[in-house]
C-alpha cells in the first residue's frame, strides 16, 4: 500500500516522553500542550529527512518510529492495537514506537468501511486489518531491500526483527534508523508477504496499553484540557425546549459580575464568556433569557410512545425475506411479543466541549472527536471559511459512545469564537450535556414466530424507530431501510426456514437521535434474545438447549454458547429469587455468549451476582483489551437496562445530571469473567458488544428469577417486586 509519502500538517514535537512500567518508551504528540501557555507556536514540519513510505509510518534516521493513528482513542484501546498490528508486520521494536493523532484527512486516514474518517461501529480493527498489515509489511520490505543493496546480498537472505535488518551469513546488522534514508529510494514491492498467525510476536499478546501511563498521573490531555495563551472560558445554554430559539436576553445583571467578559447571543443558544468556567457559569445564571419555545413546546413522552406504537402497527420496508413467512406463521404454534426501548443519553464522563480560535481568515479547533473531517467541514461552513482554512487538533476522548460522532459542540463553539478576538474554550455543564444530547432512539420491535418440533419454523420481525442514518449518512438510508437499525435483525445465528424482517422509520417529534454504544444491534439483540427465552419457556425447554438446537450452521456461535454454559455453571442450583439469563449474539463479526446471574429482592430491586461471557472475536489482537471492553461494555449495557431512560415533558428533557440520570456504581458491580476463545479468523469488532449483550442477559435472568417476562426497558421494579418463579 502506498498511500502518499506526504507529511501531516500537525507539528511533530513530542512533549511527553516517559518510561512505562514495562520499560516501554513512548511519546504522544499533543498539540494542546505543544502550543500551550508560555510555549511558542511551532510551524508545521515536514517528513523530509525521514522515511515516510505511507501516511501511517515514519522512521527517523535517529531510529525513532512514529505511527500515526487513523482511528481515535476513546478508551477502547485502539491506539495500542493499531500500533501492535503495524509493528508486527514492520518488525518494529514495539517498546520504542511513538504515537501521533492523525490530522483531518479522509484520503489518508478515512476508515476503509466508511470512506471517511470515522471511529465507530466497532470496526476500527476489522476495517483497517488488511491495510495496516500491508503497510507494515511493505515498509519492512523496503528496509530489507535497502540493507541488501548496501551489503550486495540477496534480500531473501536477510531477516528483520526489533527495528533492525540482519544478514546472518555475514553477521552484519543495520538498524531501521540507519536504513531510513536509503529506504526512501526503494520501490515498495507489490503484495509483500504477510506473516502467518503462528509467526506473530505481538498480535495475540496482552501487551500493555500505550495510552494509560499518562492517564494515572494527570498528564493525559483530553479535548477539555486544551490550554492556550490568552484563552477565555465559556459555557452555554440552549433553549430548554428542544429546537427552541432565543427571543430576548436581559444581561444587565450578568455584565457587572467579576470575570464575565462577554455575552454571546446566538439564534438558538446564549453563551457567557469569562476568565474561567466559574465566571461563565455565574454569568449564565444571572441572565434573564426569554425563549421562543417553538413547535415542540407541548411534546411529551406519552405522545412520543403513542406515535411510535401507531407507526409500528404499519407495514414496513422489507429488509430481508427468506422462504414463505405467511405460510410458515400459519402452521405450528404461533406466538407474538413487542419489545420497547427508551430514549437514552450518552453521558460521557467528559462533558462535550470544544476550543476554537477564529482569526478571520483561518480557524483552529481543539477537541476530542470521532469524526475529524466532519468537524473540519462543519466548522468551515459555520464560520464561512474554505475547509482548508480550518485546522483541527484531535485529543484523547473522555468517552465517546457515539456522542462524539457529532460535530455540534465544535460548531457552537466556533459560532461563539467568531465573536471573540482570541481563543475560547466552550464547556457544556453536565445539565446542558444531558438535556441537549442526540439521543439513542426509542424503539418498538415486534416479533411473531411459529414453533413446531421444538424449533422455530417462521419468524417475522419488525423494527420501528428513528433512522439515525437518514440524518447522519443519508446514503445508508435507502429504499426505506436504515442499514444500522436492522443490523443483527437480518442475520440471526439461528436456522429459521421462513424469515422476514421489516423496518418502519418513525421519528420522535422534536428529538434529534444519534448513535449510542451498541448502535443498531442494541435494540435488536435485546428483542431477539428476550423473545428466544419466551419461546423456550413456552415449550418448556431450557433456554440454552433451545438455542443449541438451531445453531447447526453456526459453529462459532455454538462453541461460544457451549463454553459460556460450562463456565457460568449453567443449570446449577440457585437460591430462591435468583436466576440466570443468557444472550447469544453474532453482532459486529464477533460471536459472544453471555450469562448473567442476578437476584431480585422482595422490593423488586435487582442485584447483579455474576457475569460470564465467552467471546470468539477472531484473532484477538490484544486479548486483555478484549476482556476489558467486554467487562466495561457489559456494565454499560446493564446500567441502561437498570436505570436508563430520557423522558420529555413540555418539550423539555426531564433528566439533567447523575442524580436523576443514574449510573451503576462499584458497589453494584458484579464479578465478571470473560473467556477469550482462540481463533484464526480475521478480527471482529468488540467495543459495542458488551453493551448489546448485557440488557437481554439481565432481562432473561430476571425472567428466570421471577417468571415475569419484561418487555420494556428500563426494568420496572414494580412489575417484579414480590414475584418469584
Amino acid at each position, binding site marked *: 500500500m502506498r498511500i502518499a509519502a506526504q507529511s501531516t500538517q500537525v507539528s511533530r514535537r513530542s512533549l511527553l516522553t516517559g518510561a*512505562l*512500567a514495562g520499560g516501554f518508551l513512548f511519546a504522544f504528540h499533543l498539540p494542546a500542550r505543544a502550543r*500551550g*501557555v508560555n510555549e511558542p507556536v511551532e510551524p508545521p514540519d515536514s517528513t523530509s529527512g525521514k522515511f515516510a513510505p505511507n501516511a501511517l509510518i515514519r522512521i527517523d534516521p535517529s531510529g525513532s518510529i512514529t505511527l500515526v493513528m487513523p482511528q481515535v482513542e*476513546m*478508551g*477502547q*484501546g485502539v491506539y495500542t492495537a493499531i500500533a501492535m498490528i503495524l509493528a508486527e508486520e514492520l518488525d518494529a521494536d514495539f517498546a520504542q514506537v511513538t504515537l501521533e493523532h492523525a490530522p483531518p484527512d479522509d484520503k489518508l486516514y478515512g476508515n476503509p468501511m466508511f470512506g471517511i474518517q470515522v471511529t465507530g461501529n466497532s470496526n476500527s480493527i476489522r476495517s483497517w486489518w488488511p491495510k495496516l498489515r500491508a503497510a507494515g509489511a511493505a515498509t519492512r520490505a523496503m528496509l530489507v531491500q535497502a540493507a541488501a543493496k548496501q551489503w550486495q546480498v540477496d534480500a531473501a537472505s536477510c531477516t528483520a526483527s526489533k527495528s533492525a535488518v540482519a544478514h546472518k551469513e555475514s553477521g552484519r546488522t543495520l538498524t531501521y534508523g540507519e536504513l531510513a534514508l536509503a529506504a526512501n529510494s526503494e520501490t515498495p514491492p507489490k503484495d509483500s508477504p504477510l506473516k502467518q498467525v503462528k509467526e506473530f510476536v505481538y498480535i495475540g499478546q*496482552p501487551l*500493555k*496499553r500505550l*495510552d*494509560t*501511563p499518562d*492517564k*494515572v*498521573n*494527570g*498528564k*493525559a490531555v*483530553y479535548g*477539555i*484540557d486544551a*490550554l492556550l495563551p490568552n484563552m477565555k*472560558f465559556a459555557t452555554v445554554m440552549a433553549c430548554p425546549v428542544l429546537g427552541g430559539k432565543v427571543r430576548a436576553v436581559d444581561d444587565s445583571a450578568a455584565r457587572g459580575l*467579576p*470575570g464575565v467578559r462577554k455575552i454571546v447571543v446566538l439564534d438558538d443558544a446564549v453563551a457567557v464568556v469569562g476568565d*474561567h*468556567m*466559574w465566571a461563565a457559569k455565574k454569568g449564565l445564571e444571572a441572565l434573564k433569557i426569554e425563549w421562543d419555545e417553538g413547535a415542540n413546546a407541548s411534546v411529551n413522552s406519552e405522545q412520543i410512545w403513542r406515535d411510535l406504537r401507531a407507526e409500528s402497527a404499519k407495514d414496513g420496508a422489507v429488509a430481508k425475506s427468506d422462504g414463505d413467512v405467511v405460510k410458515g406463521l400459519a402452521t405450528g404454534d404461533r406466538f407474538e411479543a413487542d419489545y420497547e426501548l427508551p430514549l437514552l443519553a450518552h*453521558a*460521557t*464522563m*467528559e*462533558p462535550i466541549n470544544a476550543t476554537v480560535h477564529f482569526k478571520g481568515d483561518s480557524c483552529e479547533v481543539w477537541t476530542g472527536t470521532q469524526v475529524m473531517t466532519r468537524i473540519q467541514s462543519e466548522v468551515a461552513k459555520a464560520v464561512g471559511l474554505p475547509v482548508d482554512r480550518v485546522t483541527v487538533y484531535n485529543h*484523547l476522548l*473522555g*468517552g465517546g*459512545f457515539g456522542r462524539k460522532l457529532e460535530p455540534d459542540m465544535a460548531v457552537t463553539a466556533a459560532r461563539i469564537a467568531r465573536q471573540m478576538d482570541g481563543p475560547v474554550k466552550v*464547556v457544556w455543564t*453536565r445539565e446542558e450535556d444531558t438535556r441537549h444530547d442526540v439521543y439513542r432512539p426509542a424503539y418498538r420491535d415486534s416479533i411473531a414466530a411459529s414453533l413446531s418440533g421444538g424449533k422455530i419454523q417462521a419468524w417475522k420481525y419488525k423494527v420501528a424507530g428513528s433512522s439515525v442514518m437518514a440524518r447522519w449518512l443519508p446514503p445508508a438510508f435507502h429504499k426505506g431501510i436504515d442499514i444500522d437499525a436492522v443490523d443483527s435483525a437480518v442475520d440471526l445465528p439461528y436456522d429459521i426456514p421462513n424469515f422476514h424482517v421489516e423496518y418502519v422509520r418513525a421519528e420522535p417529534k422534536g428529538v434529534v437521535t444519534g448513535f449510542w454504544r451498541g448502535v443498531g444491534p442494541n435494540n435488536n439483540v435485546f428483542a431477539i434474545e428476550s423473545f428466544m427465552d419466551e419461546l423456550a419457556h413456552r415449550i418448556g425447554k431450557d433456554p440454552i438447549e433451545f438455542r443449541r438446537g438451531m445453531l447447526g450452521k453456526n459453529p462459532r456461535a455454538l462453541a461460544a454458547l457451549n463454553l459460556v454454559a460450562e463456565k457460568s455453571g449453567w443449570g446449577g442450583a440457585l437460591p430462591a429469587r435468583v436466576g440466570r439469563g443468557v444472550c447469544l449474539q453474532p453482532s459486529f463479526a464477533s460471536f459472544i455468549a453471555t450469562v448473567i446471574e442476578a437476584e431480585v429482592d422482595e422490593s423488586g430491586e435487582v442485584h447483579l451476582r455474576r457475569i460470564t461471557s465467552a467471546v470468539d472475536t477472531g484473532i484477538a489482537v490484544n486479548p486483555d483489551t478484549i476482556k*476489558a*471492553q467486554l*467487562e*466495561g461494555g457489559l*456494565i*454499560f449495557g446493564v*446500567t441502561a437496562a437498570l436505570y436508563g431512560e430520557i423522558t420529555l415533558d413540555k418539550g423539555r428533557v426531564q433528566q439533567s*445530571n*447523575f*442524580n436523576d440520570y443514574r*449510573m*451503576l*456504581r*462499584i*458497589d453494584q*458491580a458484579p*464479578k*465478571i469473567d470473560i473467556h477469550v476463545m482462540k481463533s484464526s479468523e480475521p478480527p471482529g469488532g468488540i467495543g459495542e458488544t*458488551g453493551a448489546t449483550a448485557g440488557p437481554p442477559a439481565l432481562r432473561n435472568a430476571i425472567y428466570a428469577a421471577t417468571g415475569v417476562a419484561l418487555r420494556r426497558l428500563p426494568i420496572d421494579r414494580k412489575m417484579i417486586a414480590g414475584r418469584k418463579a
Partner: protein
Amino acid sequence: MLTLQINGTEQTLDAPAEMPLLWVLRDILGMTGTKFGCGIAQCGACTVHIDGKPVRSCVLPVGALQNRAITTIEAIGATPEGAKVQKAWLDLEVVQCGYCQSGQIMSATALLAATPNPDDSDIDAAMAGNICRCGTYVRIRAAIKQAASGVKS
C-alpha cells in the same frame, strides 16, 4: 488575593472566595489533571485531597482552603499509597478512556491511607462516589486489593 498550598507549593492567586477549587486548579493554574464531570459532587471525577482526605473540588469554595494542604493527581504519586495505587492501576490495566481515573485514584489512595487492608465493603463505601462510564469497576476493585497487599489478585 488568596494563598493556597497545592502539592507542597505556595500559590498566590486572585479568585472569588466562593469559586470552587476545581476551576481554580483547571482554569487559573492550568492543572488539568483534576476533571470536571458533574459540578454537583455526584461523580467524583474532581476528587482531590485536603489534608489527606478526599473531597469533591467541584463544590469546594476556595476561600476556605487557605493554610490547608491540597494534593492533586499531579502529585499523588509522591505519596507511598499513591505510588502503589498508580502501579496497580497500570499492572492490571484498569484504565480505558481514563477521564474518571484521576478521581478514582485520589479516592483509592485516601482509602488505603486510612484503611491499609480494605475489604470489599470498605472499597464499596470509599469508591461508590466515583462513577466510571467505561465500567472499569471490576479492575478498580482488584487493583485496590493488589495495591494493599502487593499481591496480584
